[in-house]
């Protein structure tokens, strides 16, 4: 195994460390949270170096396989999380994001998506299509993380949990707003990705994954419309999580069933 391919190991270790340390942050803000944030930063840097290595050594697009796409997807999710995750109040979002990121990166590694000198020569359009679709799904993933955190914190506030002020969680209003923005960004990226994919589309190419992707678009678009009409807070968060279930469960199932 080339040395640069081994970068997946520190990335995975750092993400794993971050996931564990975020659990420690639940007991109260402090060292665990800072360690977790450094884990995310270092892991992301290691993964960035890995992706650069893959991009420079491959002939074509290096993330065309499901495992390669998963590798790029994890990088996008963690990168987007870093925008908020460094702020102490948003650290707990990492508890929703980092275990998933560590698991998916391990899966990508096991599936051969972190190797060098692989790639397909499907061309630039496919690369743009896949990149945009993955960025869209990454945005929806983060949005779902915020929706999950909203549901959890809203329940704690409703039940008058005594420790409600001891665990630093973003305000409900901020979670609701950022989750909606994540959906908006995700929808935009997905629409652009579909547009890029349409350039290569030929009659008869329709498959289950496309149908599910369109269903995902419809669910999230409905969410935004309903939110505009007053469906905010818990209901919006639950609908967001339903949409994410399509992304996380149904889409991979339809992809592998083909």
């Amino acid at each position, binding site marked *: 195994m080339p040395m640069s391919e081994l970068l997946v190991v520190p990335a995975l270790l750092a993400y794993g460390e971050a996931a564990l340390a975020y659990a420690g942050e639940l007991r*109260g*803000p*402090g060292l665990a949270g800072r360690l977790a944030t450094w884990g995310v930063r270092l892991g992301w840097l290691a993964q960035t170096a890995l992706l650069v290595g893959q991009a420079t050594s491959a002939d074509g697009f290096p993330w065309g396989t499901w495992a390669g796409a998963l590798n790029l997807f994890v990088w996008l999710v963690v990168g987007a999380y870093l925008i908020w995750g460094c702020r102490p109040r948003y650290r707990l979002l990492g508890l929703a994001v980092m275990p998933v990121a560590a698991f998916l990166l391990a899966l990508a590694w096991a599936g051969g998506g972190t190797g060098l000198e692989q790639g397909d020569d499907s061309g630039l359009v496919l690369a743009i299509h896949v990149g945009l679709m993955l960025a869209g799904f990454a945005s929806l993933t983060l949005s779902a993380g915020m929706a999950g955190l909203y549901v959890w914190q809203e329940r704690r506030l409703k039940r*008058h949990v*005594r420790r*409600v*002020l001891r665990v630093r969680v973003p*305000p409900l209003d901020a979670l609701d707003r950022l989750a909606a923005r994540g959906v908006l960004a995700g929808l935009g990226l997905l629409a652009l990705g579909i547009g890029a994919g349409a350039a290569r589309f030929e009659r008869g190419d329709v498959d289950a994954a496309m149908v599910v992707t369109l269903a995902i678009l419809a669910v999230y678009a409905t969410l935004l419309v309903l939110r505009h009409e007053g469906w905010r*807070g818990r209901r919006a968060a639950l609908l967001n999580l339903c949409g994410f279930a399509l992304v996380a469960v149904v889409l991979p199932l339809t992809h592998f069933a083909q």
Partner: protein
Amino acid sequence: MTRLILVGVSHHRAPIELRERVALDPERSAALAAHLGQEAVVLSTCNRTELYLARPDDAEELAVATLTDLAGDRAEELGAVLYRLSDEAAALHLFRVAAGLDSLVPGEGEILGQVRGAFEAGSTGPFLDRLFRQALHAGRRVRVETAIGESPASVPAAGAALAQQVFENLSGKRILLLGAGKMSELTARNLVSRGAQIGAVANRTLEHAQVLADSFGARALGLDELREELAIADVVVASTSSSEPILRKADVAAALRSRKGRPLLLVDLAVPRDLDPAINDLESCFLYDVDDLEAVVAETITGRRSEAARAEQLVASEGERFRRWQASLDVVPTIASLRALVEEIRDSELERAGSRLSETERKHVESVTSQIVAKLLHLPTIRMKEAAAAADGVVYADVVRHLFGLGEEERRV
């Protein structure tokens, strides 16, 4: 050698009758510090009055006499409650005070400002300047590196903190006050201090509502005019003396229709309760009564105590840093004498060579010899300060004085 003396009384042992006798407002504290002369700081808060003196002579009796004067006819009670600390222990005590660790509620934030005020009003010199600057640093460090000051320590503060848990920013958020009681006013003031605005004050007696509303620039309402205000309020604070609930679930549910899902925090400080507990079942409504808030406060105070253990470690490290600095003062005169001697030798040698050198050469030789002196003395200076911190400073200082004959000429004179 300068000694630090602390003499004071505090809430730990002194009753309020004695504390109020020795308490001083900022102006009188400043005047007393000036009267005590260089270097003196008077720290007087509702929980303590403390005199910090840094003098070469023993200033303890002066400090005790000053407090005895302040206590007046209660002076005989002073002996049993007065504490006297010196040097490292006194510094550590001040660091604990600045960090809020000596306060009634651990981590309370007001004390840091009071320490800063006392420092600025004191008559400080190099010693107390260093001590108080480090105390302020220790206080800030504890607040940044631990969560001791983050959680609310009172019911009104808990209400405000919960509002911040629901809303991202309280700036511009609208408060509806039900009742014109003291508790609702306190909670409202806490919310206003965080950027919220009081939209309306509703009360059974409109005149009472008007008085409070005027003080906040809000409008006064009767209790039968709430529906319209409920539709636009973000936080409702209730504390009327009504024996029946003022707001029922149906009233709030009706208002929710026009709120478009915006959250509503309701804080019920009244006993019997003003707000129907079933309101909490409504979506986007968060209702806290006084028991809920007290439970939150009790939990956060427990949290503050556990954070206090971490804060104590930080304060101890600051105390050690101060001890090392104070110990290094023992060798400062020796270091100064050594440097003066070397400079004197350098100057006289330069003077002797002066006539044989051009102006450019003289400047060059001056620069080179100055660098040689600085480099030669750097390590001995550091080592002497380190030795001082490890309690060997006096021995080292004596050896250096003996080897270089420092002070011998003065003795001969």
